[in-house]
């Protein structure tokens, strides 16, 4: 084993320690600042009128009575806001996929329950809601599209007129000799699986507070965004008006601005040369075939952006969870900003829970047919998967649900040796809420594959564990890359977690427990699931999904030491529960050799932090966010050390820094501090404030590594009289490399598993066949409580590579593994195959044959 923990720490050695969270000093005493807490003087409150119908045309809208209500400042119809905003354009396109363009409001047609029809701005949310009831709208209902099957009907009412029916995309890819493998394998086993709709449900809903500077018109937007920079640029582009285009002439005539733009463009092009070269335009061609207006809008927005001299500032403060749902930029973000800009007054919109359930982010309504080609001895040969993904009505922005099948394409075969793989499928539109990334957005590939492996094992009469053991990729015989493209190194250590998990299962005890359960009318079962995830993945990960997109991997860092010696580290991450402030302090403090409190972490404010398209998401915070922090800190320390060496009349290589004391090795009594060094430089530079050392850096991770892996094992105990399921034990054996803070990592894993438990036993976002939302409150969408979530045992493996910053992401894995392990356990307990992910008590008893369906 190469596992050692002590190679990556320096200075005081915070790395790997269970350091208590610095965030808690404000959050646990009620001093956090969440978006709803931002209440600038005189702020107005917004409420949206939302469609009660899933699919309808709007014939007329009358806001007269609402506008007259005392306390109402303005009622905006959809048309009024659409007239002053630009549409949401697809930014991520693929061959065979059409992404509908849409505006921030619906003025002619509504496409889901909760669709945005009008916006009231009033002195209080109470009055705003009163006004909503006074708006009169005449709708004509259209036939709704409520299910995947309805979406696939050729002559069904269309959501999007330029699409082919309600199918927005067809995707197809294959790897290896599929036909040959399938014709020669001993068995081909085919099954169909389905997963119902889920929703992310962070405890804090979405929200935005738009402050308008009365003098300059500048917008300062406090928002629950996982990606504040993306929001800033999107808002800048979407709020650009005709005046912006007229101003374009000014831009052309202004040599300074023109040159600055040219320099920035050149820098971008040179940094991303390879990536840009690899991009094909097949996606753009597919899109333009359906809708040529893309070019017109792109041109208008680009000119507007160039001409604009004032972009909004976006600030993300404390955020109450997201799980992917606060990454996308939403129509409400644009509508509220446009309204505030138009009124010239600050406006707060806080989504309520019912709104959040209607359109705060939904996920994973997907159907699959999978075929596995396998030999009689259990050798897996090939896999074919057909899918249909229900994206709801409006495509996510800037990344639509298209990302999900592109990731399935890479992940679906899992950590198993396989000769051939094929994926075909469709993205369909239905009259439901928006699909967003939800913690491991691609996770159903693991559920599908791992569930199917158990089916195959039973068909072949071998155990699920033996089937996995036979096929899992192992150190020593590991290929250089997955069949689907991404390269691999020893961080893809699934086999290690699998072997360790098997060691930790007492199979003899399991048989005894099963017998004991049966004796009292219960059934006990065990389920295993293994997976790997790119966290952040190797350099070719994104380009394997979509040629030319590997520029998404890199993360920018910036750090400075102020004239008074303060160390300030800037991150473009937007934390929302992941404890970035604590872990980044650990990483930086180790590099600088200072106590935690000597490092300040700055995040969330686009005026202060460097650009990032993605912000926090995709398990980037540990490997890339902390990685670039480590590297920039190391470079700054080197600069400080050089100056300190001069001051101490020693060689730089002899300088040691311990607990903030910069000294010649062995002579700590004659040490100096960062403040002393900074003061020296400040004096030399004849300055007294501002940064005296600065560093900016781009970081792309550590090469072929970057895989987080795990094996989950679930034990379930089912009461056949009630269908209620208990989870007497749950084990996660995981390897995310060297752990920065085990308290944080354990929390991420347990939280993810809890959402997996929810997905299987409690949570289903119910729409009826007419696309009416049934789970509109927390009485009906069941987030599990402390009584439902079991204790979760975690076993860490910490495979190190020779990389410098080997920490790998771990935020998503819990949710990826849990549905598979749990449904496998239910299947084992009941002795029947399970082809659906959601198993409420009645369904358990139906599967058990206790009650009729």
């Amino acid at each position, binding site marked *: 084993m190469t596992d050692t923990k002590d190679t990556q720490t320096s200075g005081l050695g915070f790395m790997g320690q269970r350091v208590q969270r610095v965030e808690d000093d404000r959050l646990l005493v009620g001093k956090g600042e969440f978006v709803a807490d931002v209440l600038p003087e005189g702020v107005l409150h917004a409420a949206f009128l939302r469609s009660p119908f899933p699919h309808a045309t709007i014939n007329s809208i009358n806001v007269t009575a609402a506008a007259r209500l005392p306390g109402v400042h303005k009622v905006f119809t959809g048309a009024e806001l659409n007239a002053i905003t630009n549409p949401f354009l697809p930014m991520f396109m693929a061959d065979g996929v059409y992404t509908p363009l849409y505006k921030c409001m619906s003025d002619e047609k509504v496409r889901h329950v909760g669709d945005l029809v009008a916006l009231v701005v009033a002195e*209080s*949310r*109470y009055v705003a*809601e*009163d006004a909503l*009831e006074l708006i009169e709208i005449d709708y004509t209902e259209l036939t709704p599209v409520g299910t995947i099957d309805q979406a696939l009907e050729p002559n069904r009412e269309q959501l999007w007129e330029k699409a082919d029916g309600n199918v927005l995309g067809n995707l197809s890819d294959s790897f290896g000799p599929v036909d040959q493998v399938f014709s020669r394998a001993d068995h081909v086993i085919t099954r169909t699986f389905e997963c119902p709709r889920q929703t992310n449900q962070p405890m804090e809903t979405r929200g935005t507070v738009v402050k308008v500077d009365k003098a300059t018109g500048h917008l300062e937007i406090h928002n629950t965004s996982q990606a504040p920079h993306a929001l800033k640029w999107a808002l800048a582009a979407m709020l650009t008006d005709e005046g912006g285009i007229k101003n374009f002439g000014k831009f052309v005539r202004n040599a300074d601005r023109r040159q600055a733009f040219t320099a920035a463009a050149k820098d971008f092009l040179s940094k991303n040369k390879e990536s840009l070269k690899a991009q094909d335009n097949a996606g753009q061609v597919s899109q333009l075939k359906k809708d040529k207006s893309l070019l017109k809008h792109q041109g208008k927005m680009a000119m507007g952006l160039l001409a604009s001299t004032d972009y909004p500032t976006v600030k993300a403060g404390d955020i109450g969870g997201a799980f992917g749902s606060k990454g996308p930029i939403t129509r409400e973000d644009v509508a509220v900003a446009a309204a505030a800009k138009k009124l010239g007054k600050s406006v707060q919109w806080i989504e*309520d*829970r*019912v709104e959040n359930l209607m359109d705060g982010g939904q996920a994973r309504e997907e159907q699959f047919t999978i075929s596995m080609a396998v030999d009689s001895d259990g050798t897996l040969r090939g896999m074919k998967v057909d899918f249909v993904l229900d994206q709801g009505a409006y495509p996510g922005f800037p990344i639509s649900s298209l990302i999900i099948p592109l990731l399935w394409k890479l992940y679906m075969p899992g950590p198993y040796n396989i000769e051939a793989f094929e994926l075909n499928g469709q993205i369909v539109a239905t009259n439901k809420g928006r699909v967003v990334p939800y913690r491991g957005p691609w996770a159903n590939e693991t559920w599908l594959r791992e569930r199917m492996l158990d089916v195959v094992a039973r068909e072949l009469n071998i155990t699920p564990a033996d089937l996995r053991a036979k096929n899992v990729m192992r150190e020593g015989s590991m290929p250089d890359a997955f069949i689907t493209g991404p390269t691999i190194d020893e961080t893809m250590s699934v086999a290690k977690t699998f072997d360790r998990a098997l060691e930790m299962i007492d199979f003899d005890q399991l048989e005894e427990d099963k017998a004991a359960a049966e004796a009292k009318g219960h059934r006990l079962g065990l389920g295993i699931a293994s997976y790997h995830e790119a966290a952040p993945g190797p350099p070719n990960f994104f380009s394997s999904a979509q040629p030319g997109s590997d520029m998404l991997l890199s993360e920018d860092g910036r750090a400075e030491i102020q004239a008074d010696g303060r160390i300030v580290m800037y991150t473009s991450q937007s934390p929302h529960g992941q404890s970035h402030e604590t872990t980044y302090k650990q990483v930086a403090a180790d590099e600088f050799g200072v106590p935690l409190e000597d490092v300040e972490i700055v995040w969330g404010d686009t005026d202060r932090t460097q650009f990032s398209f993605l912000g926090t998401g995709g398990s980037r915070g540990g490997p890339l966010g902390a990685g670039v922090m480590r590297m920039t800190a190391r470079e700054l320390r080197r600069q400080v050390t050089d100056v300190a060496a001069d001051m101490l009349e020693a060689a730089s290589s002899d300088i040691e820094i311990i607990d903030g004391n910069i000294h010649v090795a062995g002579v700590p009594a004659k040490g100096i501090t960062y403040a002393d060094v900074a003061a020296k430089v400040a004096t030399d530079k004849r300055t007294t404030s501002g940064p005296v050392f600065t560093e900016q850096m781009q970081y792309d991770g550590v090469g072929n590594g970057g895989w987080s892996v795990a094996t989950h094992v679930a034990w379930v105990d089912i009461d056949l*009289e*009630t*269908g*209620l399921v208990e989870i007497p034990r749950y084990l996660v054996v995981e390897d995310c490399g060297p752990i920065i803070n085990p308290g944080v990592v354990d929390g991420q894993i347990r939280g993810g598993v809890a959402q997996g438990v929810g997905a299987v036993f*409690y949570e*289903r976002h*119910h729409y009826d066949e007419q696309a009416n939302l*049934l*789970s509109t*409150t927390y*009485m*009906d969408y*069941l987030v*599990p*409580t402390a*009584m*439902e979530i079991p204790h979760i045992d975690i076993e860490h493996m910490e495979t190190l590579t020779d990389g410098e910053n080997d920490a790998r992401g771990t935020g998503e894995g819990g949710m990826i593994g849990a549905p598979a392990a749990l449904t496998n356990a239910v299947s084992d307990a009941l002795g029947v195959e399970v082809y659906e992910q959601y198993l*409420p*008590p*009645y369904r358990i*008893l*139906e599967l058990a044959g*206790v*009650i*009729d*369906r």
Partner: protein
Amino acid sequence: MKNPPFNYHRPATVAEALDLLAKHGDDAKVLAGGQSLLPVMALRLGQPEHLIDISAIDELKAISVNDGVTIGAMVRHAEAEKSAEVKQHAPLVAAALPHVGHRAIRNRGTVVGSIAHADAAAEMPAVCLATEATMTIASTDGARTVAAADFFEGFFSTALAPHELLSHVHFPAANATTGTAVVEVSRRHGDYAMCGLACSIDAGGGTISSAALAFFGVAGTAVRVADAEASLIGKPPTADAFAAAADIVKATLDPSDDIHATAAYRKHIAATLTRRGLAEATSTIGVPA
């Protein structure tokens, strides 16, 4: 999700409350603990023009012992839960209270408010049916009493007229040879039950002399299953007798589907709960409260 506007009244006496109800009854709602009414209003599913808040009426805050227990309209669940009198004289009420919502809800919600709200999935209406409680209904016309069996009329609807106040509920005393139990199956801990049972069984001398089986969550109101109750009379309190009653329950109830449970599932767990509830109730016979 904010409350709609309403005319707010907080009477200090029952008489004042009744005057307000007489005046505004058709357009008024009585607010006690608010744990059911306020969410309905915040969701704007209910918009009473007048809200008559009875929380300041001291005369409604008492629990009194009188051949059983009388609970006033402002007695909160938590107060009843802590009450030794309720435990001793109305054991089925005491058994039901821990199942009502969560602690913070019980701290504000009232026993009588839950009864007046008449949610068919709630525990208290079933307890009223099983114990044959008596409702005291006050109005400016005077007070009248209504038996529990006549009080619950349908889905969220009762015998209360708009100008009336359910001021007290009397739960008759249980005798010493009676055992009680409240059992339920809910999706999550603290949720409304998919099916629940409030039951009592009198098995003095080793033979069942009376039994009450009141189910909740399986119909538009809580319901008793008389045939199943009758099947138990004269038999010893054994698993066989309970199973036979459970079969009758299963054959009798006609629940419906919703997103949490199918009708078939509800019938199945109603039978399960019959067996479990009766066994648990029997085990409490003679155990001092």
